[in-house]
């Protein structure tokens, strides 16, 4: 390591780095990107080349084709993207709403059982997901909620705890005086939350939303079990369904993967600051 001591955060490009470190960074970036790159390359190869003992390792396809893309689009991969968007949006909306209310109370007031409540939230985020599958399936079946967007309600187990956690961290940053002023002006707690605190915590709200969206977007097990109908399959489930009885259709899978990674890429590029803040909220004591 070179001298950490001279680092100054506010002045970019001041520092000279050991070329060895640059090499390590370059290698790291290559390792991070390589799987995607290879998937992109493979997605343009025809089936025979993908399985061939030599052609499988070529950088450029001998006979490049976009057939894989047309096939998966015809198989409805875009419907899965649509489902993923719908499911993730619904989850994000209600989770942000519910989390805001709870986080407001936890961040602002002290009451009996607060530690227990926080312990409960933390406990749930540590839950083995497997535990909820059986009972929740039976409940959904009895209420006729299988194969529907109701699955988003079950997503609360995986999204709500961290959402509350991030929101608490952000609400705490807002000075109490602001709220007190609002209360003097005659705001109720409800109004104080939505008219004063919520807008002021907008960056935090946004971070929560992004994190919730990504968590919902990535969910696999619940959709697999609760929504067996293809019409409700989300991206992770739909892509895995491209494995057939005798072959794994790598051409189609790679093409589908490229297609579904695009939305994620856009989100990461646009919102990386919020994502980073989301990952780190609650992890640092301030």
């Amino acid at each position: 390591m070179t001298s950490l001591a001279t680092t100054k955060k506010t002045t970019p490009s001041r520092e000279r780095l050991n070329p060895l470190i640059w090499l390590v960074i370059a290698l790291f970036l290559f390792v991070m990107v390589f799987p995607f790159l290879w998937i992109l390359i493979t997605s343009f190869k025809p089936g025979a080349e993908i399985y061939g003992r030599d052609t499988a390792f070529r950088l450029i396809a001998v006979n490049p084709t976009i057939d894989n893309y047309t096939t998966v689009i015809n198989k409805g991969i875009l419907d899965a993207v649509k489902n993923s968007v719908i499911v993730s949006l619904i989850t994000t909306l209600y989770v942000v709403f519910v989390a805001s209310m709870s986080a407001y109370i936890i961040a602002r007031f002290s009451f009996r059982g607060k530690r227990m409540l926080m312990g409960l939230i933390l406990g749930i985020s540590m839950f083995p997901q497997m535990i909820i599958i059986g009972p929740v399936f039976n409940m959904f079946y009895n209420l006729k909620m299988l194969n529907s967007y109701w699955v988003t309600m079950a997503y609360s187990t995986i999204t709500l705890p961290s959402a509350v956690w991030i929101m608490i961290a952000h609400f705490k940053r807002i000075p109490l005086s602001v709220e007190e002023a609002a209360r003097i002006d005659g705001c109720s707690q409800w109004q104080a939350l939505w008219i004063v605190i919520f807008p002021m915590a907008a960056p935090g709200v946004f971070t929560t939303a992004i994190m919730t969206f990504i968590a919902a977007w990535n969910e696999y097990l619940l959709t697999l079990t609760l929504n067996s109908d293809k019409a409700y399959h989300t991206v992770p489930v739909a892509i895995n369904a491209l494995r057939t009885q005798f072959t794994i259709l790598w051409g189609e899978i790679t093409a589908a993967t490229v297609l579904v990674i695009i939305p994620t890429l856009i989100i990461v590029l646009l919102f990386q600051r919020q994502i980073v803040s989301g990952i780190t909220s609650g992890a640092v004591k301030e």
Partner: protein
Amino acid sequence: MKKLTILLLIAVLAIGGLTTAMAAEPVVVKFAAQGDSTPATQAVIDAFNAAQTAYKVEWVDMTNDSGAMREQLITTLKAGSSEYDVVSLDVVWAGEFAAAGYIQPLDMMMDEAGLKIEDYNAGSMASGSYAGKQYVMPFFPDLGMLYFRSDIVSEEDGAKLIAGDYTWADLQAMAEKYMGQVGAKDGFVFQSALYEGLVCNANEFTANWKDIKGGLEAMKAMIDDKTTPDNIMTYTEGETANSFVKGESVFARNWPYMWGMIKSEGTIKTDQVGIAPLPGGSTVGGWLLAINKNSENTEGAFEFIKFLNSEAGQIVMSQAYLPGFNAMLTNEDVVKNNELLSMEGFQNALKTTTARPVSAEYSKVSDALQQAIHGYLSGTGTVEDAVKGVETALAN
């Protein structure tokens, strides 16, 4: 008063019209099956819906990941759901579904309709016979068979193969003799990766588990010698088809679907390919049809199953699949749709079908078989251990 009469008349007419409309509305029968890359499944559904007006079959498109589909069916059926009326089952699932009481026995319905168990594909029917009751009828049977290059293999050897007059050792010798000709750099390719296909292949090598030691040793001999590719232990159907269809191997063990691949994308042509039965019999694969125990439309469900296995249904299905109704194996229209049936070697293979073990806990049995066999084949265990493992697994 007059107004009222007219109103009444209109009301009566309206209600009458409504009820007739309702009576004409066919009962929906839900059919859970995987997506079909061929048009056959949709065609047979359409044919059934056109052939009668009482029922309308709707296809519930299940995931093509068979493991996931089985789990989905189980989770749905165990909850007592009537979501599906007809369910398609992989041949190895039927024992479990029957034991669990998820599906209905069909004997009485079949008897009433005058259908006889022995008229349908033996391996398929046996796969769904549990505790004295018949739970399934065929959706479409599938079977393992030997593909060989008729342009490489001598006529004399070809005749032996087609007649089924050879052993695994003979096959190995032939593979060694012919490999390397016309670009076919490998002698024989089959499936020995760690998965269900290994059980199918072992079932054939051991002649339906009658000669476990001999069969496994024959398998190991094939893997160890140079007639098979170095990485044969990773071969599933995908690798097998890729090798044979591209003309890189002389012999291949695979299912009938590879014939279609040779036709559509083969480097070799079908006139270069012969079909033969396997020395230890052909493992039956394919899918079965059963009725959900909690179906609210049992009659409609059975009507559909009956139709699919009737002459009309089988002709439609034959555009992509083998008939499960034995009488149709020689039917002119069916044979025209499926040229495999006109080949002597294929008909011989059809006569020697065997089923994998029928068990209420098939996945456990299969898992144990795979572990035992793969351990020996990959060189980590002795043949004695493998035989013992296989026997223990089969005893359950």
